[in-house]
């Protein structure tokens, strides 16, 4: 029964390989690639924060998303502190001043408005649907080549592939970058000038806006990401609809304080030293406590709390603090050479 399925897959692969090989190798330029550049590049602008911030000048890339001259780009201190002195170089060679009209605090994206009245509509980039994007799709990243493209020089085109579309725990410099939705990870060459540049699919549609260089908080690996365009469409639509709205689009929501009493689990983990990498080994479990009832034992290693990975004894204590009395947590434990899963229902602390 499985054979035809495998055969189908094999047949498809072989034919696709044949298609690739018969149409020439990498030497043959893809018409789609060329058309995609032609569709988007006229709407890509080079953004410069002219005042700079502590001697660092702002290099960014933006993309015109509305014919009235709205430019979407990645926000930055160099743009915020530019005192309105932001210059945009359009693809046709025009140089226009711009100001920030709206900022999205969640994605750190901003919308600029080109100054002055244009006699004809600005060229806009066609926006695609990022939810159709899959890992393995080829993309183009069009942007300002950092400290290379000056004045009327055109933007540069970088080629890459979508590596993954996933939620990542990110860090940007010293700060956390708490973007809760999935981002597009790609391998197109990124540089500080390209931040804010459009990620374009083979159909010549913008499917994401490139962010800055970030690190994964789990692996310390540097990653290139883009915010999916679907997440930014409402931001653009709202700004077009309400030109006089306050500059902050989505203020960062402060989580309400949970007034429920903290939960007690009775699991004590071994304390570690300065390297802070001591894993969460169970030292002892208080008799009669929820942890005891659930079957947690000394020398178990706690690997996961629900879906959160527990890397150290400190992170175990920190993560458990988030849970309240009455909640049930699923602990993944290593016991000997096996993996055990237990459910611990936290209780309220008994008054002494």
């Amino acid at each position: 029964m499985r054979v035809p399925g495998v055969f189908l897959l094999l047949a498809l692969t072989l034919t696709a390989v044949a298609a690739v090989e018969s149409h020439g190798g990498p030497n043959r330029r893809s018409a789609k690639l060329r058309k995609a550049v032609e569709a988007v590049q006229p709407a890509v602008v080079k953004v410069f924060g002219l005042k700079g911030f502590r001697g660092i000048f702002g290099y960014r890339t933006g993309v015109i998303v509305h014919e009235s001259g709205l430019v979407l780009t990645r926000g930055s201190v160099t743009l915020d502190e530019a005192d309105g002195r932001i210059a945009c170089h359009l693809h046709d060679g025009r140089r226009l001043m711009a100001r920030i009209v709206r900022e999205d605090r969640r994605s750190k994206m901003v919308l600029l408005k080109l100054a002055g009245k244009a006699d004809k509509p600005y060229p806009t980039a066609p926006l695609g649907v990022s939810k159709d994007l899959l890992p393995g799709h080829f993309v183009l990243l069009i942007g300002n080549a950092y400290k290379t493209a000056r004045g009327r020089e055109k933007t540069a085109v970088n080629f890459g592939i979508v590596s993954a579309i996933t939620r990542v725990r990110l860090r940007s410099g010293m700060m956390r970058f708490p973007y809760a939705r999935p981002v597009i990870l790609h391998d197109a060459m990124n540089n500080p000038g390209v931040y804010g540049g459009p990620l374009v699919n083979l159909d010549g549609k913008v499917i994401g806006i490139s962010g800055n260089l970030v690190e994964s908080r789990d692996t310390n690996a540097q990653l290139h990401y883009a915010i999916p365009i679907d997440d930014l469409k409402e931001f653009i639509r709202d700004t077009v609809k309400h030109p006089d709205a306050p500059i902050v689009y989505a203020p960062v929501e402060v989580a309400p304080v949970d007034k429920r009493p903290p939960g007690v689990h009775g699991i004590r983990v071994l304390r570690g030293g300065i390297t802070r990498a001591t894993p969460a080994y169970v030292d002892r479990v208080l008799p009669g406590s929820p942890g005891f009832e659930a079957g947690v034992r000394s020398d178990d290693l706690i690997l996961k709390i629900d879906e959160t990975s527990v890397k150290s004894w400190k992170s175990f204590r920190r993560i458990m603090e988030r849970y309240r009395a009455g909640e049930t947590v699923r602990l993944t434990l290593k016991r000997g050479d096996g993996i055990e899963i237990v459910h611990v229902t936290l209780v309220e602390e008994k008054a002494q």
Partner: protein
Amino acid sequence: MIAASLLSASLLSWGLWLVPPPPEEEMDELEALQIVLRYAVDRVSDSVVTITTRGGIRKVEIPDALKRRMTTPNAPERPREGDPSAPRKREDKGGDDEESQKPEQKRYKNEWEKMLAYPGFKKAEGPTTGIVLSKDGYILTSSWNFESKPNVVLVTLNRGGRQETHVGTLLGVDRAAGLALLKISATDLAVPEFIDPDEVRVGSWACALGRAIARERPEIKYGVISAKDRIDGKALQTDAATSPTNYGGPLIDKRGRIYGIIVPLGARGQEASVNWYDSGIGFAVPVPDPDELIERLGKEGTVLEPAFLGLQMNEDRTEPGALVTKAIEDMPAAKAGVKDGDVILEIDGKQVLNSFTLRFAVGRRRAGDEVKLVVLRGEERIELTVTLGKRPKRQNVGKIPIPMPDGRRKPGRDGNRPPGG
């Protein structure tokens, strides 16, 4: 019946694909390639596993500038609060490359904590990627994640979209190639197909796969095979982006076969810090024979070191053969009887064209291996058997103190002056 209909359906689809479409709607080369890559990734997807570790020493790479500040007693103090010259405290704006250059603004309890928080200098750590080597639970990965000596190794398998975690045992480590072999007690694993290194052509398409961040599907980085026989003939070079997210993962071709295992083999050895990867220079070590690898690394605690012959060569020689200018005393080759002025003609039956052939042949072997050399001494052909040794540790290099004008002593390059001393 169903099978027959499926068969015909597949034939139909194949047929449709083979009929050349009209030129206007010709399938774009890149779109076709996208489909090819998707199937290639699907073919190996179940063999690509996630490896997480717990415990071990957290490594931090301290930049020299910061080290100096820490050890200099008169380092400028942090401005006090209310000091008008103090840098303004900024709101959290997400941070940029520019912002990360000003880390001193944040307050830390002590210098240790500051170092640990310093961005860009944290050494990469797990989770990382591995690849199934055999049906009965041998897993191959990059050894960089075990440099910190973790207490616990966990391997997360993906079987048709379902994840299951197993406790792994670290068996052997090949320090020459940067590989580590793990064993888990699981059966019926999906074993991938490995490509014979001789079949690899420079310029072929190559995808680097990792499973450290996205768990559902491997992450894909795309490039070509840039060169063969790199790092003493041990590794393939690729321009597909390699980073801690795919170290230990496979570099695959467009049919889903594995060129090699991605490892950090840079100029600076096996250290994987965040500073120098992502440069377009990545390495993958081919696995010509998985069974042989399991045999060599299968015993717990095995450590294979790079092989060393102990010969200095004349690299200007144009005739075939490698001319020995000096056989270093007490080193493997000299012990086996190689003398200055000998010309090495063959190694293990393979002709030695020049000193590089010899170097690559030795680079592919490990310390402790035996090689048979055919040596030309005068007019005489001599057969010698050399047991390859370890590269000796360089001694007294850079540790000679350099006298300073004011009487202090400046340590040499590798000086191990204690902090503050």
